[in-house]
């Protein structure tokens, strides 16, 4: 199958979309990705090679550093020509450059929180509030199926503005996880084309 295609006129190939699943260590990112992915979540050590900044941007003698980052992802094929990728963020803040790379081109983000350890997801909430243009929702992962704190309390504790949707999810449940993904995409629709979202 060969399509006539040039950079200006892409052929009718497959396209892909991406949702980022963020949050602190142990909040259920890998569980959520695994619950909906058609492939086993790929948990991989990605090597990031970064060029340090020098005065001359084209200098070939830049000092290079290699960082190893654990990231995981899954995928869902939606019809013949569309694939959705789910990327879990590496937990530690020292991997911010990786977060930028992961979020570039993402349609939405789901920040997972665990009410027993809200603080581990603070950096992720901060990131999407201040450092990213990807619309996001916050989802309280119901470990054991029980909501231990009312959502309004969670919203207050996170300092989350009203415009950011706050929902609950059972990351182990395929159905629940899919609903959270849909909610995040609907939020993007509402934030980016508000008149057309309905």
């Amino acid at each position: 199958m060969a399509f006539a295609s040039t950079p200006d006129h892409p052929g009718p190939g497959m396209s892909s979309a991406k949702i980022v699943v963020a949050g602190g260590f142990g909040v259920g990112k890998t569980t959520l990705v695994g619950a909906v992915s058609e492939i086993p979540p790929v948990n991989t050590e990605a090597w990031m090679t970064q060029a340090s900044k020098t005065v001359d941007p084209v200098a070939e003698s830049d000092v290079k550093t290699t960082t190893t980052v654990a990231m995981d992802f899954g995928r869902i094929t939606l019809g013949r020509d569309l694939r959705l990728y789910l990327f879990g963020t590496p937990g530690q803040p020292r991997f911010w450059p990786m977060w930028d790379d992961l979020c570039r081109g993402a349609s939405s983000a789901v920040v997972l929180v665990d009410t027993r350890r809200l603080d581990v997801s603070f950096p992720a909430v901060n990131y999407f509030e201040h450092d990213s243009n990807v619309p996001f929702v916050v989802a309280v992962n119901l470990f054991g199926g029980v909501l231990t704190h009312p959502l309004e309390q969670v919203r207050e504790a996170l300092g989350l503005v009203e415009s950011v949707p706050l929902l609950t999810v059972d990351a182990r449940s395929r159905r629940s996880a899919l609903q959270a993904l849909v909610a995040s995409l609907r939020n993007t629709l509402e934030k980016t084309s508000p008149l057309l979202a309905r």
Partner: protein
Amino acid sequence: MTANPWVRPYVLTRGRTRTNHHLYMHTLVSVDRFDQMVAGRLAPEARRLYERAAMSPESVAELSSHCGVSLGVTRVLLEDLASTGRIRINAETYDSPFDRRLLKRVIDGLREYA
């Protein structure tokens, strides 16, 4: 990772760390017509990427992970392969990740998948 620990990654890319197109981690790569002769002439890392993409379209992140080639190096090598027409970088059909038609298609697709 199966990357060769004795070779600093950028040596494989002859010092290049930037690419002309931005390849997202989820950008799909495919091979329209696999050529064994071409594969035989490629360096090991590029060959692994080329052979893997020929099996079925995969994202940049998948290729990097499955072939044990770092993301940065994967991007540069894929760009080389694309510039000589060996692989197809499936250009995004939609202008933006926030394109309304794309979002609606993904939402509908997920509901069907549920």
